């Protein structure tokens, strides 16, 4: 009879290094840590290879017969196409500077989530098949054969990377784990391995226009509803033009902003701001999705979904494009969109019609982030605000990886916050957790599914840990951000770790504070919560 384990034996307390090297240890694919395999119908909708029903927990993933040749050929193609990939594979000296910087390592303690080891999962195969030393010496040269266990390990760990690039900030060579992750995911996709959450969003976006699969009618209905909500709360009518030809500006937002909470309040904020400015803008039912889950699967799919934005700008004959509060949309639009489709000679260099400011940083891609746009308005004194309307909020700000580390938008949101919050209501998290060192929400890059909640909560632990600090020290009760994925996933993260925290977009705070001449008396914010000084009135009403 087997002996019962003691508590110490149960948790395998062990001061010895494992007898095998890390690359020889087979990955244990834990439920709660991975996203389900993509259903075949989504793959068929976008014409992706090898659609089939399979399960991550299955021993046999039903890979195509020639999967190995396909993956190696794919790797060779990418090595030729992207010199950066070859460089990232060759240049790492395993100094370990990145090892303890990844939020997934800091949350799980799993060494394969150290970026250096995660990259090694790919790099070892590169050495085995593309480097002379690896071909001859095998394991001695850090090389290993490509087996189906290796594929499973790639799947498991490349989807435990949120492409956030925090590791790159600390790498002395600037090796970009995000690029390797995307290319690794492309290789997996080439043999029919995709995650359901991302593929469902991609297929629906491709088919109907938004990740959630809403029709143009549903889109129009929702933006009208949010405009009505504005009127109910503020007395101000905030119409939202849709598909209006000849408008000056095309406004694009992620669908989370008009379907999901709390993004919807940010959307109400956009409409109030534009009404205040009497801005000549339009939204589009075709370019109804600023987000781009395609980019989380492959560059090709990212490009396919992104096509709608310029196409629609051209069709509606706008001058330039304004983007809502979104993180990865922003990275895609800034870093990929002009390369994919440029030169963009059918649009003009963006100029603010209110202040005359030329957005020279957007000369190439012709798209401005709303934080840049709003900060400029404040800089020129164009907005009258009453910060006391945000006095019920004590705020800290989460730099979203893509806008902050990816695009350098650090100051604009803080500048806006300082205009719309009462003095002493904004508190920064510690310096090693914000700005370019910001910690990811832990759920980005297509892994904000429902079946992998364990890993999402662990990946978000470093962020939550810093939020908890400002909550306990200063009584902070709101976490601000300029990213729709953050608005979707941070509430969940906070409810697990710091349940006292609400999540808010920054434009929502702007709209709370914005003073219109013909507004009705404001007693609540956009969420129907009583403003400071009106709590009693709210209670009395509730008691009636």
């Amino acid at each position, binding site marked *: 009879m087997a002996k019962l384990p003691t508590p110490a034996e149960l948790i395998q307390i062990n001061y010895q290094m494992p007898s095998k090297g890390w690359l020889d240890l087979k990955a244990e694919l834990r439920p709660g840590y991975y996203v389900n395999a993509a259903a075949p119908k989504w793959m068929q909708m976008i014409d992706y290879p090898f659609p089939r029903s399979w399960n991550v927990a299955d021993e046999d993933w039903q890979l195509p017969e020639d999967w190995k040749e396909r993956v190696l050929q794919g790797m060779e193609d990418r090595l030729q196409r992207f010199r950066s990939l070859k460089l990232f594979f060759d240049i790492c000296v395993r100094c370990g500077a990145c090892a303890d910087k990844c939020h997934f390592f*800091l949350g799980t303690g799993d060494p394969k989530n150290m970026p250096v080891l995660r990259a090694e999962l790919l790099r070892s195969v590169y050495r085995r098949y593309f480097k002379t030393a690896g071909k001859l010496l095998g394991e001695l040269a850090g090389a290993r054969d490509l087996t189906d266990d290796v594929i499973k390990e790639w799947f498991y760990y490349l989807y435990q990377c949120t492409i956030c690039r925090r590791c790159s900030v600390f790498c002395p060579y600037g090796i970009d784990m995000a690029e390797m992750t995307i290319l690794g995911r492309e290789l997996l996709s080439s043999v029919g391995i995709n995650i359901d959450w991302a593929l469902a969003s991609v297929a629906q976006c491709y088919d109907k226009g938004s990740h959630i699969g809403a029709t143009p009618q549903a889109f129009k209905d929702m933006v009208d509803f949010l405009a009505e909500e504005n009127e109910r709360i503020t007395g101000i009518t905030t119409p939202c033009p849709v598909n209006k030809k000849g408008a000056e500006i095309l406004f694009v937002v992620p669908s989370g902003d008009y379907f999901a909470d709390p993004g919807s309040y940010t959307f109400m904020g956009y409409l109030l701001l534009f009404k205040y400015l009497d801005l000549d803008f339009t939204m589009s039912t075709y370019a109804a999705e600023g987000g781009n889950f395609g980019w989380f699967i492959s560059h090709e799919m990212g490009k396919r979904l992104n096509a709608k934005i310029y196409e629609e700008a051209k069709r509606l004959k706008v001058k330039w494009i304004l983007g809502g509060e979104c993180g990865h949309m922003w990275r895609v639009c800034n870093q990929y969109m002009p390369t994919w489709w440029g030169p963009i000679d059918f649009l003009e260099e963006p100029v603010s019609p209110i202040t005359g400011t030329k957005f020279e940083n957007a000369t190439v891609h012709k798209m401005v982030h709303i934080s840049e746009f709003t900060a400029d308005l404040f800089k020129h004194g164009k907005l009258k605000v009453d910060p006391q309307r945000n006095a019920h909020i004590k705020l800290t700000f989460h730099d979203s990886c893509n806008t902050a580390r990816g695009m350098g938008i650090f100051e604009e949101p803080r500048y806006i916050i300082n205009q719309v919050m009462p003095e002493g209501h904004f508190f920064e998290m510690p310096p090693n957790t914000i700005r370019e060192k910001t910690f990811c929400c832990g759920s980005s890059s297509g892994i904000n599914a429902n079946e992998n*909640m364990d890993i999402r909560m662990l990946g978000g632990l470093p962020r939550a840990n810093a939020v908890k600090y400002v909550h306990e020290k200063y009584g902070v009760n709101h976490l601000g951000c300029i990213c729709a994925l953050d608005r979707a996933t941070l509430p969940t993260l906070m*409810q697990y770790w710091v349940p006292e925290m609400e999540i808010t977009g920054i434009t929502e705070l702007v709209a709370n504070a914005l003073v219109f001449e013909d507004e009705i008396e404001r007693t609540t914010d956009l969420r129907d919560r009583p403003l400071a000084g009106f709590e009693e009135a709210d209670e009395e009403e509730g008691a009636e």
Partner: protein
Amino acid sequence: MAMALNDLLLQKKSDILDRWRDLVFASYVPETARFLRSQKDRFANPIAYQLNRGLTGIFEVFLEEADAEQIMGHLDEVIKLKAIQETSPSRAMAFLFLLKTIIREELAPQANDPAFAAEFTELESRLDGLALLGFDVFMQRRERLHEVRVGEIKRKVGALLRRLGMGDEFFEEPSGEERDSR
């Protein structure tokens, strides 16, 4: 008159906590354990911070013979991490049972002294109680994980639900008190 066991435990508090922490760190793979021990910045090492905060709190309230509610709050600091890091309840809860072994070893002379037998039995009984409360906290955390999942699904179409006039009833969540009293 010999010192009461509780006073002895208080005297040895830092030794016991050091050993407990070290054993819990040692349950991670060696590379990680080394990191958990060496990085002292709480924001650069959230696991160690969370474990340290929890283990210290648990031991302190245990010595104070605090009530169950207080103890559960401190247990939660560790268990909210372990409940999603470990593969099974037994692995997640093992850290509490390590304390029993450590105390027996730290108080070896008393443990083997028949004069302390009754007090030791009582002490170990309280440790068992601690562990049982730990299982309650573990279940609360797993339930919480499912609650936040459902909450996210609702929020994903939250504005749509409000559009349909169904916002309030869908979003009513049990209050903290209601949840705790289950």
